[in-house]
């Protein structure tokens, strides 16, 4: 039997010991003496969040399919265990072997959102690995970062030995092969990093430095190793139907956020909403074969025993074989009493029909994401959803028996006016009115319609047309939330509308990290050393410590958030090539300011640059580059 890293006494003291024992169905055990590479794959948040992430499941399964590699999982110990591990000097361990991470060859950390940055430092410190890459000697694992936040790695560059830019399926094998070769040759850690910098998609931050101008913006990036590449082109999988996909995902013992089989039907999005980073990063759209998806759906359900399957993509309605896939799933899953969950579907007659078949209408709610309150502002952000479409969808849904609607908006978008904000209340009200017009009094199940309107604050992200945009201050954000609330209160149907808004402090910090440069790392380190951790959990977020840490590091938050950026400013992430050109993004930024929409990839190619990858929507029949 496996020996656990933590003694019974500790496991009985902490909340949810199942977070730390491993041994789940489909977790992979190997003989450590018979593998050449040990890889710890980390999601720097609590187990229930980390276990819900598809990307890690894909990489875990791919790594372990290689006979000479053993990949284990590691998550952030929750604050209760964190304290005990620090007190008793217990090194952080992999869930599978229960052995220290420090003894492994690699520690891979996925970077899914900016607010987990302090948890990276927590994981490193608990693992007893030096926080700064420059302080690590040959005995330490190579610390590698990947995921969406790796597209602007500079704020956390000092903590990583290297970053993997793009989709993980392609270059890990060459990277591990080089690692083994270098080891055989007796090469040093530096030799490994130098060689790694020659592998496509791999960025070694210590081979570069940022030189700043007097105003604080970047003057140039200077290379410290002459063979290091000038730009790093992201890696993508060109054929997503013939690539690795996990047919035996790990099944957690405890309930996790995503407690179901996840079937990724496509990568990328044709829509091009101008605030959306994922919509640019994952271009071009690549669909998986329906036959591949059917096979995997059946296998994954059989191998996990999950009672639910969820389709995953940025915009499922745009998947061209959706009908066929859903017909198959509905028939197959009904026999096995398996639920189907369908996020990110456009609300129309087809999707309502499907949802009516697979969900309990009385319990489920409809979700619309207009993102902005007026048509003018929706044109600015290139969100192709009109009021007419929303009201038509809602009316159809009310006729079908739905009584709950969720609406998502953003506050602080570029060019936003008070009129746009009033539009949020107006639209919420019109949807409520549509219910009362559609459903006669005697047929209203719960008496009234429930509309939940939520707003988040707009945060400009790298590699979007809005990377040039100024962000609001905390006070501006809160004023906008106040106006939204007022606007809703004034509505005729205000009793049917509930309004939620997001915390502003966290949004401001997220804005700093998103477009930060290498200097920001010092503030992250300082805040961590003063106790910040689990910043995405409101109960452990300490804004005052953050503000002090920035001030003590001589950094101005406004420089990163509210400052106006010129068209030709050098951004910290400009050395990364995500496939979409800066010219295209700038064109889109200009069009946004004129409220001009851009058609989606299938309607008319906008020449974003992603065609160079040679696959996906760019090469569908009838699609031509402009």
């Amino acid at each position, binding site marked *: *039997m496996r020996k656990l890293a933590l003694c019974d006494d500790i496991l*009985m003291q902490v909340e949810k010991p199942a977070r730390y024992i491993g*041994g789940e169905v489909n977790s992979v055990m190997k003989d450590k003496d018979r593998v050449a590479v040990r890889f710890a794959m980390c999601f720097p948040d609590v187990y229930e969040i980390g276990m819900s992430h598809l990307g890690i499941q894909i990489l875990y399964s791919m790594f372990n399919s290689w006979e000479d590699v053993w990949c284990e999982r590691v998550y952030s110990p929750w604050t209760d265990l964190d304290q005990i591990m620090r007190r008793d000097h217990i090194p952080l361990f992999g869930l599978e072997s229960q052995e220290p991470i420090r003894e492994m060859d690699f520690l891979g950390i996925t970077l899914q959102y900016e607010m987990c940055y302090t948890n990276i430092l927590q994981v490193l410190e608990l693992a007893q690995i030096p926080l700064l890459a420059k302080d690590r000697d040959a005995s330490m694992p190579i610390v590698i970062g990947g995921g969406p936040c790796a597209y602007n790695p500079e704020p956390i560059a000092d903590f990583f030995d290297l970053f993997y830019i793009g989709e993980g399926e392609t270059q890990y094998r060459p990277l591990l092969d080089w690692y083994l070769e270098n080891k055989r040759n007796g090469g040093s850690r530096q030799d490994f990093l130098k060689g790694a910098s020659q592998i496509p998609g791999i960025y070694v931050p210590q081979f570069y430095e940022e030189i700043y101008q007097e105003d604080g913006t970047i003057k140039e990036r200077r290379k410290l190793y002459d063979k290091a590449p000038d730009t790093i082109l992201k890696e993508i999988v060109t054929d997503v139907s013939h690539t690795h996909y996990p047919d035996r995902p790990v099944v957690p*013992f405890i*309930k996790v956020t995503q407690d179901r089989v996840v079937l990724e039907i496509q990568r990328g999005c044709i829509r091009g909403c101008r605030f959306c980073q994922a919509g640019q990063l994952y271009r071009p759209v690549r669909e998986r074969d329906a036959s591949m998806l059917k096979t995997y759906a059946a296998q994954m359900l059989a191998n996990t*025993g999950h009672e639910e399957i969820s389709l995953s993509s940025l915009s499922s309605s745009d998947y061209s074989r959706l009908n066929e896939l859903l017909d198959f799933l509905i028939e197959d899953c009904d026999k096995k009493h398996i639920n189907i969950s369908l996020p990110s579907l456009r609300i129309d007659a087809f999707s309502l029909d499907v949802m009516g078949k697979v969900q*309990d209408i009385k319990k489920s709610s409809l979700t619309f994401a207009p993102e902005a309150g007026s048509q003018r502002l929706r044109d600015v952000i290139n969100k192709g959803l009109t009021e007419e479409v929303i009201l038509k969808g809602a009316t159809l849904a009310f006729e079908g028996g739905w009584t709950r609607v969720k609406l998502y908006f953003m506050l602080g978008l570029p060019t936003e006016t008070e009129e746009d904000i009033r539009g949020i209340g107006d639209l919420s009200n019109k949807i409520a009115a549509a219910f009362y017009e559609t459903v006669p009094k005697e047929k209203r199940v719960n008496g009234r319609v429930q509309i939940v309107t939520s707003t988040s604050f707009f945060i400009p992200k790298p590699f979007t047309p809005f990377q040039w945009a100024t962000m609001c201050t905390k006070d501006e954000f809160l004023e906008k939330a106040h106006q939204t609330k007022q606007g809703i209160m004034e509505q005729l149907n205000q009793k049917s509308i509930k309004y939620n808004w997001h915390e502003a402090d966290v949004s401001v910090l997220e804005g700093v990290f998103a477009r930060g440069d290498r200097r920001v790392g010092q503030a992250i380190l300082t805040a961590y050393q003063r106790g910040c951790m689990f910043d995405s959990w409101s109960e452990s977020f300490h804004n005052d410590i953050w503000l002090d840490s920035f001030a003590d590091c001589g950094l101005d938050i406004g420089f990163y958030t509210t400052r106006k950026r010129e068209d030709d400013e050098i951004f910290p992430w400009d050395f990364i090539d995500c496939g979409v050109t800066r010219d295209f993004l700038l064109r889109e930024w200009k069009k946004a300011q004129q409220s001009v929409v851009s058609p989606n990839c299938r309607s008319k190619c906008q020449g974003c640059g992603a065609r160079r990858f040679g696959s996906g929507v760019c090469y569908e029949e009838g699609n031509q580059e402009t």
Partner: protein
Amino acid sequence: MKIRIKFAKYGSMKFIGHLDMMRFFQKAIRRAGIDIRYSEGFSPHQIMSFAAPLGVGIESLGEYLDIEVLSMTSTEELVSALNRTMVEGVTILDACILPDTVKNAMASVAAASYQIHLKEGDFCLPDLAGSVVSFYAQEQIPYTKETKKSVIEMDLKQGIYEMQVGETQVLTDIMSAAAAVLITDPTEERATVPCIRMTVDASSSGNIKPTVVFEKFCTFAGCEIPPAAIQVTRLETYTNQAKEGDSRKLVPLLLQER
């Protein structure tokens, strides 16, 4: 067709709580391809009932759940199909077909037997057996049960049906009594350690925790043993088959109607 399944839970699985064990079995039954019956209605669930919930940290050689199946080749095949999809720390021991008239597992539970041993060292009592005998010989064992809602004075003695000392095998490195029984080669000579065994009321109305009995024993015998130092193992779960008016007749749940 009603099926009763007996299983053991040990090692790291002792940290998995009751609700999560139910979820674990729901998924295991799907993986094993068992033709289980589902309830009617919009969101059907598997027809499944667990016997007495086991506290986190306690191991067991005598856990039970009942399921209803629509078809099945044999109980032997069902046991091996489930065992093929188990994890380290859960072993399906046996299964039998129940007559339709039998009450479900949870309603049938009357008593459970437990064993308590120390994870390290021994009880440090000059005469452990003698102390257990005199503890159990008491007319009454008063106990104040404090719940969130009330404080109840009760007599533990009424619910302790049996208590004695014994010897148990122990694996040197994992301290798992249940695993020692299940995994070790029975022909192999192994070191044994002393333990206390007891059979107590486990019915829904009068359930007694073995740790409470142990705590009272320690106070009585004048030894100080922190709760973290002991390992509790449930050995068996029983139903009461006494006819009206008779005294107790405890029978393991699996053998109830065989």
